[in-house]
């Protein structure tokens, strides 16, 4: 028996459909990333010429005190920023999601919308509004706190080195708590009612049902929320820039990777901008996020399974 196989025509339709997206992805995402990595290995001369210097930018950034102090400061601050989100934003998001999914709750859609609303606002507006609210000069917070008898506890939180970063973190938490809430809420809704009924008939209390049944089933979502938080936090910039400017004051107390990168790359006040040093900071940011995501994938994602419900 002979079979004559027509030579398969080249699948032009695949090129046609993938092409535009791929092109955009390559030009605005892959190329800049690779070029940044490349730039970080060069040094920029006064006249604008680039000379290859290997890893010297990185060694400067990590070991030369002039560079490494701000770098480690920003990294450390960024870590704190992230920890506050993990310890405050995500647990509150989880709690809100659980409350929202409680069958006895009325007007759940209104709550959901209201809590999610700040997420849709511009960070610039949120930063500005909170700056006004918390201002010791004309903010309403102080009066409000006096009114409820807590006036003594008021402080210029945004202006103090000890509290500025924490306050900014909380503002960010306030704005974005709707995201984990929505994601976890959706995951909770995906758990079939009969499963919950079964555990109730088995004798579990509401807490036991949550801990033994619901929590393990939404673990993948919580993991995803965590990694999204991580990536967003280590890419954060706008809030600090809006409220504290590029100098991330007071005394760099709120400086994070994003603002450090901004000053390094574009320059600010006395500091001269540097294309190549900026690229080196950006590369390190990229690596930090890469390592974080890799750790998540290998340590967490592998152990947590998604279960068909």
């Amino acid at each position, binding site marked *: 028996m002979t079979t004559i196989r027509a030579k398969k025509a080249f699948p032009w339709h695949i090129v046609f459909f993938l092409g535009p997206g791929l092109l955009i992805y390559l030009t605005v995402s892959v190329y800049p990333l690779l070029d940044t990595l490349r730039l970080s290995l060069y040094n920029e001369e006064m006249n604008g010429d680039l000379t290859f210097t290997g890893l010297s930018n990185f060694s400067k950034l990590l070991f030369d005190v002039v560079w490494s102090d701000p770098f480690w400061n920003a990294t450390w601050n960024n870590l704190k920023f992230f920890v506050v989100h993990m310890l405050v934003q995500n647990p509150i998001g989880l709690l809100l999601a659980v409350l929202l999914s409680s069958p006895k709750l009325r007007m759940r859609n209104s709550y959901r919308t209201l809590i999610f609303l700040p997420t849709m606002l511009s960070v610039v507006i949120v930063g500005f509004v909170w700056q006004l609210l918390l201002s010791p000069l004309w903010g309403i917070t102080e009066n409000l706190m006096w009114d409820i008898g807590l006036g003594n506890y008021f402080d210029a939180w945004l202006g103090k080195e000890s509290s500025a970063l924490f306050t900014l973190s909380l503002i960010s938490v306030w704005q974005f708590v709707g995201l984990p809430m929505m994601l976890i809420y959706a995951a909770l809704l995906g758990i079939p009612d009969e499963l919950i009924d*079964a555990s109730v*008939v088995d*004798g579990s209390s509401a807490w036991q049902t949550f801990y033994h*049944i619901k929590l393990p089933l939404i673990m993948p979502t919580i993991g995803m929320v965590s990694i999204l938080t991580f990536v967003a936090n280590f890419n954060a910039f706008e809030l600090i820039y809006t409220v504290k400017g590029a100098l991330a004051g007071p005394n760099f107390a709120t400086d994070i990777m994003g603002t450090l990168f901004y000053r390094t790359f574009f320059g600010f006040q006395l500091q001269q901008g540097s294309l190549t040093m900026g690229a080196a900071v950006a590369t390190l940011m990229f690596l930090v996020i890469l390592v974080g995501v890799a750790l998540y994938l290998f340590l967490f994602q592998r152990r947590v399974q998604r*279960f*068909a419900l």
Partner: protein
Amino acid sequence: MADVKLNNIKKSYGNVNILHGIDLDIKHGEFVVLVGASGCGKSTLLRLIAGLDEITEGELQIGSELVNDLPPAKRGVAMVFQSYALYPHMNVLKNMSYGLKIAGKDKAFIRKKVQQAAKTLHIDHLLERLPRELSGGQRQRVAIGRAIVRDPKVFLFDEPLSNLDAALRVQTRVEIGKLHQELGATIIYVTHDQTEAMTLGDKIVVMNQGRVEQCGTPLELYQHPITEFVAGFIGSPKMNFIAAKVQSIEADHLVLRLSNGAITKAFVDVTSCNLDDDVTLGIRPENLSEDSDLGERISASVSLVEQLGEASYLYLTLSDATEMVMRTSGESTTTIGETIDISFNAESAHVFNADGLALKRHRAGNTKSPAELARLKAIA
């Protein structure tokens, strides 16, 4: 002993009344089957008994204790759900031991209980598996096992077999029946499959739109349905209904003029009948015969034939367009388009009055359960 008593149980969601006063008396060890059309409130009733929903009105007693306000676990009930509702992240062992663990039982005891139940259900080789690694039938057993280990006073089953394929359904049905014999526990079982109801139930409760239409042994419901609804619900294919008028009233039977003009007798209680009353004649497909020698005769044309092998169903149309089904021998050669004379025994007729209530039949057959028959034969 764990009798279950329902006293005028009502349930409403907001101002929608779902159950309108259910009275039931379930003896210890009884296998009670709730049947009824979809949406009539079977699941709702089961959930009320389980304690998953609040009883709006009425009293629920389990083992002579009022349990209206007790949480499910304290009522001593276990439930098997239609979707099995196995915890997807726990293996079979953990699924089955969850309830006992929550109850704070010690490990050795739990282990023993689970092993024992797993053996009974032939799933002891599956204990380490996750639910998704099990077949439908195996999941079903695990769900039953999860109920058994807690030694409940009452088992509640909500359409447990409806997700299984036909062969497995029959097999599991038989096993549930055997399990009931072994455990001797009270079982309340919801289904819309009447074969399940007939074969499993010591007692069948037919529900209709939130009310108990009739409650009795399977044969009682089959032989003496008290309403047209029950008559139509129990039996497959459905009972045939033919509109009729009372032509004359004799001492022990009625003479009816059917809508197609045929005259038939029916042996039913005549005390409440008047001449010319509108009634409905009910006759089961299996009581019709192609031989025209059973007494009461009707002529009909065949519009469809279904051959099942052991029997054939003839779909008939009477001269006034009334549709009927009859069951005949699988070897019948009757075919579409023929007009045939069919006949039935006047004893096998049911008659329903204009309100859909049955007139008591005088001469119906055996209504006793196998257990009762065995006892009677032993005495004799």
